């Protein structure tokens, strides 16, 4: 039975107390280790469709009479439309409708960042729509943009109030310390750049709207579109069968959707709106730049006495303040912690959640400063991390639902032990070293999440839920979970997702929450279907229900009887068994987090500043692993994205005008196959028995969190140089080398090879 509880809901580090409808989760945890299907490598169910180019993405949808659209966007960071004349555009060849400022949500006369939309046009072809945009006669009144984050904070131009946190007595913690390290770190603006840009096709059918869209949250989009269009939610259908990546950029609504919906309404035709790559690089969302001042203080033995951080985030015109101070607050047991975070509201394009927002930036500075502290004290950095291990939640003392970070540390030991051998391979030019960084992040998911499992007369199962698979392989994971519970081979399970009209509510694919939210719901739906099979089988075969179970495609009895599942399902004729399942509540009074450590082996050319990453070892604790093959892909993918963040990716803004200089994929440098080092993946794979009937946490985000800091610490290990800004360019390496050199000459201690 469903009941209402007051519970803590977490999305990417943002907690709120809400009333939540939950259903009891009565299933016992599966035993640890591989089952018949779960815990064993499984290629993706949709692998062939994707590999053969048959998977239909939003851009592949072509509806009868469909029009294309294009937007007029501001070339200025801050400006007002002084005069606009749409007549010539409206009369251009192929044009069906033109929308001007103020006619649709998010399309306004005043723009607050480059790329702000002021008009939209629907035409028969994309070329015609774009040509017509050029015919819009517009006069801009340029306004002075606010571009400096510190200046914005000083002037009170912020998104949300600054966020302060303190526990213990920070000043006293500093006073007790033997060593105090304080340093400033910066991180750059980063673009998600999913290979499929933001796009949609909107089609009105009567007074209902169908929206084909590349989204990470079908149901959130349905809700927000309905609200903005003043429609009942069931009049909006959101469809996303396949999507070409999101990484957080596609969590929410965008004005291009409202524009397409309005153009479709006016023209009575389906309308596509797809961002170009250049538009994507401006308004597609970004990981905000930061400036951080972080302090770590410890006693002589390495026990932390104080941790502090001040963070300024350049958020852009809209967005939210990500938990950049999160790592300082919760990664280590430290009694005295003080942080403050500022979110500058600027005339640059709005940030969006990007794979572990805040924690990627905050872990970079914390884990660098911690290694500097270890070096100063002459304490082994791995020992320092063990010494300050948090056995309970650092914020409020709650127990963890599960935490195997110490096991990750234990598994890190042999890799860390290699440092002597790696350093010994240094020569005059190439200096080699190893560094490490720990990681924590959320990823517990939560209710509400629902799934159905249909069992047909042919003895095959179909998981139905209106969730999305953004490329992480959740579609396959759901099939594996259902197969395990139903005792079916994986090839007898299908999965239907991606359509709000064809399945129950499903949660967002963000915050590493899809698997931990949806997986338990799918398992309970499969269990419900299995119970119904057993009830029928008990009657048909005249056995006690308690003696029957589903296994290997059969109904088996403890007395040795065994019947193919189809013997029961065939009795349904064309009917089906429908199992329903819901995600149970999160464990009360417990903190749910994910953990890990990564080690990097690097070689640094001290003459040119070139860095070669030779190996990354990623050891993570995310509870039970459903599909080891897919999990390994997630880890590698996270590490590779982190390598881009660390070395090459940088959205450059013109500091005078606030316009984006890196709008193309040759200017914004994503990692290529040639940039990838050896990546060793190691998952602890210990079910979190308190969390859900599945014991799995999310894995999408954790692997991207510690990589940059591990690399920076390896560079210090190799050369003694402290890099402090991302991306780590050759200039930054050479600057840090000169700084280290100057310190040595002043006979100050340097970090290299202290342990």
């Amino acid at each position, binding site marked *: 039975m469903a009941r209402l509880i007051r519970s803590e809901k977490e999305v990417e580090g943002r907690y709120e107390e809400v009333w939540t409808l939950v259903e009891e989760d009565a299933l016992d945890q599966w035993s640890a280790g591989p089952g018949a299907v779960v815990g064993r490598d499984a290629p*993706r169910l949709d*692998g062939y469709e994707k590999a053969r*180019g048959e998977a*239909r993405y939003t851009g592949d949808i072509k509806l009868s009479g469909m029009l294309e659209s294009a937007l007029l966007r501001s070339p200025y960071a801050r400006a007002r439309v002084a005069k606009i004349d749409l007549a010539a555009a409206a009369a251009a060849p192929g044009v069906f409708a033109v929308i001007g400022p103020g006619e649709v949500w998010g399309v306004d006369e005043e723009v607050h960042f480059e790329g702000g939309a002021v008009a939209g046009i629907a035409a028969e072809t994309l070329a015609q729509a774009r040509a017509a945009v050029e015919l819009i006669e517009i006069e801009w009144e340029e306004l002075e943009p606010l571009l400096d984050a510190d200046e914005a904070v000083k002037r009170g131009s912020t998104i949300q109030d600054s966020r302060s946190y303190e526990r213990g007595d920070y000043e006293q913690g500093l006073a007790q310390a033997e060593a105090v390290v304080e340093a400033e770190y910066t991180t750059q603006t980063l673009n998600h750049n999913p290979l499929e840009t933001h796009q949609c096709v909107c089609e009105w059918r009567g007074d209902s709207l169908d929206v084909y869209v590349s989204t990470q949250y079908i149901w959130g989009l349905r809700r927000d579109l309905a609200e903005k269009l003043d429609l009942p939610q069931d009049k909006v259908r959101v469809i996303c069968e*396949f999507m070409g990546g999101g990484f957080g950029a596609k969590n929410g609504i965008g004005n291009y959707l409202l524009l397409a919906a309005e153009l479709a309404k006016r023209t009575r035709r389906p309308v596509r709106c797809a961002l170009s*790559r250049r538009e994507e690089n401006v308004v597609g969302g970004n990981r905000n730049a930061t400036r951080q001042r972080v302090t770590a203080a410890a006693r002589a033995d390495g026990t932390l006495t104080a941790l502090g951080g001040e963070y300024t985030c350049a958020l852009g015109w809209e967005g939210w303040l990500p938990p950049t101070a999160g790592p300082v607050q919760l990664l280590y047991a430290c009694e005295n912690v003080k942080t403050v975070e500022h979110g500058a509201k600027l005339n640059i394009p709005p940030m969006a959640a990007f794979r572990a927002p805040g924690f990627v930036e905050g872990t970079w500075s914390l884990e660098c400063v911690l290694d500097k502290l270890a070096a100063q004290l002459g304490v082994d950095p791995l020992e320092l991390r063990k010494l300050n291990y948090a056995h309970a939640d650092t914020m409020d003392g709650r127990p963890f639902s599960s935490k195997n970070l110490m096991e990750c540390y234990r598994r890190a030991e042999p890799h860390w032990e290699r440092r002597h051998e790696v350093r010994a391979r240094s020569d005059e030019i190439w200096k080699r070293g190893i560094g490490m960084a720990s990681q924590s992040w959320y990823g517990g998911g939560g209710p509400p999440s629902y799934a159905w499992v249909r069992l047909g007369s042919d003895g095959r199962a179909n998981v139905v839920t209106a969730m999305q698979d953004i490329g992480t392989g959740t579609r396959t994971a759901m099939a594996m979970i259902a197969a395990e519970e139903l005792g079916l081979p994986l090839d007898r399970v299908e999965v239907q997702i991606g359509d709000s009209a064809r399945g129950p509510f499903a949660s967002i694919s963000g915050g590493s929450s899809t698997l931990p939210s949806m997986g338990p719901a799918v398992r309970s739906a499969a269990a419900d279907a299995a119970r119904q099979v057993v009830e029928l089988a008990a009657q048909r075969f005249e056995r006690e229900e308690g003696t029957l179970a589903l296994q290997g495609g059969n109904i088996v009895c403890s007395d040795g009887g065994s019947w193919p599942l189809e013997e029961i399902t065939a009795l349904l004729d064309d009917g089906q068994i429908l199992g329903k399942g819901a995600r149970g509540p999160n464990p009360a009074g417990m903190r749910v987090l994910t953990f890990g450590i990564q080690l990097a082996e690097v070689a640094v050319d001290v003459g040119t500043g070139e860095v070669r990453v030779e190996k990354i070892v990623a050891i993570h604790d995310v509870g039970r692993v459903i599909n080891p093959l897919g999990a390994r*892909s997630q880890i590698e993918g996270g590490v*590779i*994205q982190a390598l881009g963040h660390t070395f090459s990716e940088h959205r450059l803004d013109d500091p005078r005008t606030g316009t984006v200089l890196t709008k193309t994929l040759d200017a914004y440098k994503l990692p290529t196959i040639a940039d990838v080092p050896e990546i060793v993946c190691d998952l602890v794979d210990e079910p979190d028995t308190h969390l859900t009937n599945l014991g799995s946490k999310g894995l999408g985000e954790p692997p991207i969190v510690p990589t940059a800091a591990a690399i920076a610490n390896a560079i210090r290990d190799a050369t003694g140089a402290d890099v402090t800004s991302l991306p780590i360019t050759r200039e930054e390496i050479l600057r840090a080398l000169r700084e280290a050199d100057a310190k040595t000459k002043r006979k100050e201690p340097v970090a290299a090879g202290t342990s």
Partner: protein
Amino acid sequence: MPSLRVNGHDHTFDAPVGQTLAETLRDDLGLTGTKIACGEGHCGACTVQLDGIPVLSCITLVHTVGEREVTTIEGLKDHPLVDAFVRTDALQCGFCTPGQIVSAAALVASSPSPSSDEIKHRMAGNLCRCGTYPRIEEAISSWQG
């Protein structure tokens, strides 16, 4: 009317000057396996082969193709690389995958047992934002099973 030979079939097409091969394949012939991700030749998602040579169809004008045979992912559905990509999990969101396989098919045609360096060199023009690169290398290294 000009014609185009695609995956062993002849098609006539009617395209304005300046139309790209990618647009013709996707919009006129309905071959949507070829993806457009940047539209300016930077990412490799639109890769097709012309007489076996990988080219970026989003910056190839359709009127310049002439007699050359176009091979798209639809013409490579039974290529052993498809199995290899699926088996090794060399795809995540899948948007770059057709382009990866078309490039990889040209690679293994000219070099059936490519070295790691060769794979990295020949595949560096195909971006994958999900980061499937290690799996792609494994798929290509083991494409013959």
